[in-house]
């Protein structure tokens, strides 16, 4: 089964890097969508079916924390797994985010294998 992925990061370059890492990792990806902040992500979710969200934390307009809160408040989106890909590594902050329902956390810099392993854990599916 191929999974539709939404990548949310204010850096267009970083979105390309994450997409490349996803491709290299062997993750079974279907459609790919991108957004530059949380608000744009919600717009994408209104019109597209998404199985997995990969998001940064620090973004303008609507940051990753607010996006996660909005997703969890909405019955339509609350079951979509969210993976954080961020430079932050504070355990205190991460505990707060896991309490909100974040499934996995990847700190930049990362290898494609780290991404694959995190997604494997979430989707419970072995990858090539």
């Amino acid at each position, binding site marked *: 089964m191929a999974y539709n992925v939404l990548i949310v990061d204010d850096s267009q*370059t970083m979105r390309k890097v994450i997409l490349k890492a996803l491709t290299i990792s062997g993750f079974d990806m279907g459609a790919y969508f991108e957004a530059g902040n949380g608000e744009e992500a919600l717009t994408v979710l209104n019109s597209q079916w998404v199985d997995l969200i990969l998001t940064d934390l*620090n973004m303008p307009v609507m940051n990753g924390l607010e996006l996660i809160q909005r997703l969890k408040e909405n019955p339509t989106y609350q079951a979509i797994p969210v993976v954080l890909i961020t430079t*932050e*590594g*504070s355990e205190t902050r991460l505990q707060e985010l896991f309490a909100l329902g974040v499934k996995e956390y990847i700190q*930049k810099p990362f290898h494609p294998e780290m991404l694959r392993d995190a997604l494997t854990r979430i989707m419970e599916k072995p990858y090539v």
Partner: protein
Amino acid sequence: MYDDFRKAAVSATLNIFETMFFTFLELNDFPEGDASGQPGLTLEMSSAMVLRSEIPFSGNRNGVLRLFLPYDLSESLAMNFLGFEDEVTEAQILDMASELSNMICGNLFSLLDKTAVFILGSPLTEKLTSQEAMERPNEADITLNFQTEGQSVFLQLHLHPSS
């Protein structure tokens, strides 16, 4: 005085260049007893054009982190980062430099204190002549010089006195 910051900055920078850019840096080490780095180290850039990327941070300590990259090195870093074999645009190069300073800053604080929460601001990256880059306000408590492929990369940390 800033030995912990210096060690974390060196470790974060080396790791990020290697992991995300496949580029190995060598630290130009300082004389024994000068563990805090050299605040007054001259920014002698080997390239005519330079990227100056600055990111503010706040938390237990407030301040700014600054990164100086030769433009031609930045171009090859952006190609490595994106996996492109052809040309990269100037916008992509500037975006890469912002992401690089963001990653170094975030990792530095993770290494310093796993439990403290630091808020990173938005990085600002400018393309400048090396003369313009040196004339900007570059106050720093720590200045680190790295070498790669015969080119210099500088990293500065300035901690606000009140923090």
